[in-house]
């Protein structure tokens, strides 16, 4: 057991899975010698050699397209998009092949592969480096989209993603990369792909979030508990697609009130789908409209302005108050 940040925890997952399974390999721009621009793959080249830790040419479609080929041949590639902002160049391959191959061959060809990418704002990065675009992937049938929120679940979810029989887009909130540490057991630990985790049980209000927004959500929950004695249930979505609507609905049926915190722009975001699922499954249990605290439908501003655009704990607290007072 060691206290690791998310970068180290993801590195641990990769190293342990590569140790265990010679079919697992890592590829992408700068992943080998440089160890990744965030050092997520640091040290893997030395441990596993350049046939398994592969610096590729700079071409996102080539990276995912060749990973698809590797997976068809039975390897388990973990490829990296250096930033999610560059991932749109792989969309053709992702939609036309990664998400569809199982279905169009009725399972004769499957693609066990992981596409890792850092995403989200808050680290004063260059333009095109700070967006949250998880739903672009999540909307595609056959896609699995996993988003960890801390070191421990990042490690456990990545191990599960590597072992998953389907392509998994593993989106790493880079604001959480080095923001805090957690105890991460050295022994194997996995979390299921396709399940939400109730990280705190409560009876009065459900708070739902994922990725970097879990921090302000947790902070706001603590604040509202202190202020009003509210018993808050907190759900970390972890898998955006396929969505575990049951865990969400079960919680809302119990609490009757719900706040969703999402970094991405509001319209067509995952929070909209969550509201729809609550509508389908728990409408008559609601005591108040479901409140969404989200990013805005604007182009993600460059870092000079980004902080004022990101949802924060204060806004979440205000949203909770509104929901509780409805």
């Amino acid at each position: 057991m060691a206290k690791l940040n998310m970068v180290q925890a993801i590195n641990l997952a990769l190293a342990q899975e590569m140790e265990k399974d010679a079919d697992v390999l890592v590829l992408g721009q700068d992943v080998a010698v440089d160890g990744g621009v965030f050092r997520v793959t640091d040290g893997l080249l030395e441990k596993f050699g350049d046939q398994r830790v592969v610096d590729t040419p700079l071409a996102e479609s080539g990276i995912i397209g060749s990973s698809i080929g590797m997976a068809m041949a039975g390897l388990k590639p973990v490829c990296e998009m250096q930033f999610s902002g560059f991932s749109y160049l792989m969309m053709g391959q992702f939609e036309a092949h990664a998400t569809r191959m199982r279905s169009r061959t009725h399972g004769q060809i499957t693609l066990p592969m992981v596409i890792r990418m850092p995403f989200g704002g808050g680290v004063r990065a260059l333009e095109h480096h700070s967006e949250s675009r998880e739903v672009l992937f999540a909307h595609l049938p056959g896609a699995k989209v996993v988003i960890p929120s801390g070191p421990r679940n990042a490690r456990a979810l990545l191990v599960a993603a590597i072992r998953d029989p389907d392509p998994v887009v593993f989106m790493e909130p880079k604001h959480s990369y080095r923001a805090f540490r957690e105890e991460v057991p050295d022994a194997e630990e996995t979390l299921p792909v396709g399940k939400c985790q109730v990280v705190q049980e409560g009876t009065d209000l459900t708070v739902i979030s994922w990725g970097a927004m879990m921090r302000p959500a947790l902070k706001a929950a603590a604040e509202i508990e202190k202020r009003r004695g509210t018993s808050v249930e907190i759900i970390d979505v972890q898998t955006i697609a396929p969505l575990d609507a049951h865990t969400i609905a079960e919680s809302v049926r119990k609490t009757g009130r719900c706040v969703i915190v999402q970094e991405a722009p509001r319209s067509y975001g995952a929070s909209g789908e969550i509201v729809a699922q609550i509508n389908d499954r728990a409408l008559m249990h609601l005591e108040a409209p479901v409140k969404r605290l989200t990013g805005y439908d604007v182009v993600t501003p460059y870092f000079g302005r980004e902080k004022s655009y990101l949802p924060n704990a204060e806004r979440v607290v205000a949203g909770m108050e509104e929901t509780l007072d409805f």
Partner: protein
Amino acid sequence: MPEKQIAKFSVTHLQVLDEKGKVDAALEPDLGQEQAVEMYRWMRLARTLDERMLKLQRQGRLGTFPPCTGHEAVSIPVGLAMKKGDWFAGAFRELGTRLVRGEPLTNTLHYYNGWEEGNILPDADLRILPTSVVIGCQIEHAAGLAYAAKYRGTDEAVVTFIGDGGTSEGSFHEGLNFAAVWKAPMVAIVQNNQWAISIPRETQTASETLAQKGIAYGIPVIQVDGNDPLAVWVAVNEALDRARAGDGPTLIEAVTYRLMMHTTADDPTKYRQSADEEAAWAKEPLIRTRKWLANKGWWDDAREEKLLAECKEQVDAAVEEFETPVERAHDESFRHVYGTEHAVIREQHEDFLANQEREGQRG
């Protein structure tokens, strides 16, 4: 400091058998009667199936499909040169390669009649990927497959196809570049049939040849007469030998002509002259191959007649099997979204089945 030339490139064109059936004895591969006849038989079978498919489509018995007539001198020798264990990552105009590699005729018929079942091989070890309808993606898949072959220390190779239009796609360049950097055992074949639907070769690229695009990636390239099965045979064997020897990928440009429409939904009279088509028909591959065999004393009218009858019989049988009604579950798609169980899919599956039941539909 004087300027100096630091690199020099050239592109070779190979033709062994010309349109009149005249063969260059110095370049002629030693195929032998059996293999030579086998090659022609496959070419004729692919043509027969393609022609029948057009009739079926016009009669409303088959969906939209891209005819492959005129491409047999590329697809057949390539398929014959491949070995068991090799991967075929095709585009969509290589019916011949699919047949030679062991895909049942019925697969193509089912596929172009709207059923994913046509993508399913009787044996996954045939290693024939489904068609890549989206242009160019397969080159990148081939690079990854070839990487895997090398990673595992096998002598398997990967053959991939693209058209002249496809060479403008990013995936073509990215795939070639990846395979070249990895020295991966890949053979990429550009079927330059002069037309990308309505876009002619000269509108597609200002390059003098399509083969030269491979030079930019540091790999051997060659342009061959794509209506000449002997030139294709020579080039693809050299490329496969190179791949298996660990010397990396090769790009082969096979110059041919799309004698038919792009797909059955296309009308070429809108954009090209019938005189050009007629000139292209004079160069088509089957006539010259037959002449070559006849000149060698390996072929005659009687054998041709017998072959035509056999091909017809084979295609008849395939069409009969294809048109034999089978009950296919319409809810099949729900079973293959993921390799794991998920409630959202299960619930929608149940919803679908309830709709089917209510609407009185089968399956």
